[in-house]
């Protein structure tokens, strides 16, 4: 069964608006990774979170790991057209399970 769920499945935003995707698991996670996949491309590693409550930033991207280590979020501030793609979380539970992904469309 699906180990890692992501919401929303799709998100359309106007350029300049913020965007958030959420990743949820019923199981406590040892770590979580985030990937971005451009249309027609392959997943590209963004970041790994390990500690409870951890927050990491990469320019306009903010990643957070929940206190209970069962959920995570990715927030993009002031989206740009270059942010278009599908964002996946991946959690290690004896193997890496990828979430269902959130497809982001940015309208210029």
């Amino acid at each position, binding site marked *: 069964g699906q180990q890692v769920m992501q919401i929303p499945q799709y998100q359309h935003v106007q350029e300049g608006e913020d965007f958030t995707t959420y990743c949820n698991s019923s199981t406590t996670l040892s770590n979580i990774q985030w990937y971005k996949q451009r249309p027609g491309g392959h997943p590209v590693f963004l970041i790994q979170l390990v500690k409870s409550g951890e927050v990491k930033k990469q320019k306009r991207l903010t990643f957070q790991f929940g206190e209970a280590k069962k959920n995570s979020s990715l927030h993009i501030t002031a989206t740009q057209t270059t942010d278009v793609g599908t964002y996946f979380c991946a959690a*290690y539970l004896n193997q890496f399970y*990828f979430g269902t*992904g959130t497809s982001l469309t940015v309208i210029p």
Partner: protein
Amino acid sequence: DAGVTQSPTHLIKTRGQQVTLRCSPISGHKSVSWYQQVLGQGPQFIFQYYEKEERGRGNFPDRFSARQFPNYSSELNVNALLLGDSALYLCASSLYPIGNYGYTFGSGTRLTVV
């Protein structure tokens, strides 16, 4: 430095046939993982190899097999192809199995079964 290379990039096979996909990891990476990605879905884990030994197997039938060679390259074999095997097959390499620094994916092999 070459990234993860996969071959072939595209492949069309007939139901019942067998296919072999190849992957060369980043130099120095000893772990290779295989994923299947159906259109519109997240990658599904198939196998992981580390130091030439199988470290994990996903929920795939025995028609799927893989191996890792002494130079850490890897092959994924799929026998008795079904229409449902049509997908993008991704290879990912990392220094260690858990991929503490993330997995680096190849561009994938697009397999179409007709």
